[in-house]
């Protein structure tokens, strides 16, 4: 296999596409031979970002969400992008338990989950200018260890 590979998926911001987005990203990720747990970590993080775009970015109106994935060796990079209303104070938005939509039963833990399950999370956003969430995760960390153990 080549060392790098890229894909991009663009879809309507309806909640029925959340599953589809997760599967598309997970299917692309399988090239790195992850464990079930690594796949679920990435799926959870992507889900949180996509839900945010649907609920907060677009206020549940239907517009486009774009996910870009890139594999470089065993590094997996995923970017979730909307052109929605944007975030005024990113640092505040990323604080655990902070939510602007408590009435929708939001827990304010979306960014906290992304940070817990991925190695790196970066948010770019501006009021009225949409939101871009960039995440990275190295797949197969410590796997050499396993190989050594089983020898």
């Amino acid at each position: 296999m080549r060392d790098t590979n890229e894909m991009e998926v663009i879809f309507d911001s309806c909640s029925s596409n959340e599953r589809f987005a997760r599967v598309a990203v997970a299917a692309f990720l399988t090239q790195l031979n992850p464990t079930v747990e690594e796949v679920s970590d990435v799926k959870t993080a992507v889900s949180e970002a996509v839900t945010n775009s649907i609920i907060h970015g677009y206020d549940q109106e239907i517009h486009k969400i774009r996910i870009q994935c890139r594999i470089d060796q065993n590094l997996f990079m995923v970017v979730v992008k909307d052109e929605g209303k944007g975030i005024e104070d990113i640092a505040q938005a990323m604080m655990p338990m902070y939510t602007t939509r408590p009435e929708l039963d939001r827990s304010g833990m979306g960014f906290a989950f992304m940070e817990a399950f991925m190695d790196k999370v970066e948010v770019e956003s501006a009021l009225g200018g949409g939101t871009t969430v960039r995440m990275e995760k190295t797949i197969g960390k410590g796997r050499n260890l396993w190989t050594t153990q089983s020898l």
Partner: protein
Amino acid sequence: SGEIKRFLRDDGMIKVSRSLKELSYKLFQAREEMTAALGREPTIEELSLELHVEKEEIVQAMEAGGEVESIYKPIHQ
């Protein structure tokens, strides 16, 4: 031949959602067995070799697994 055709037709009527749920149950079992045997999490590739299913299909089945886990959990406990 009318009978055979109908048989094939019925076979084709299995909903993909059901077949993915079945696969997700097998996946759940295989993952537990292999984790015990290997002393670590199996990779998707190892699961795909064990179950004779493409890696991409395994992640699709994982997605269908949510309900299955709750259905089958009581049996395991």
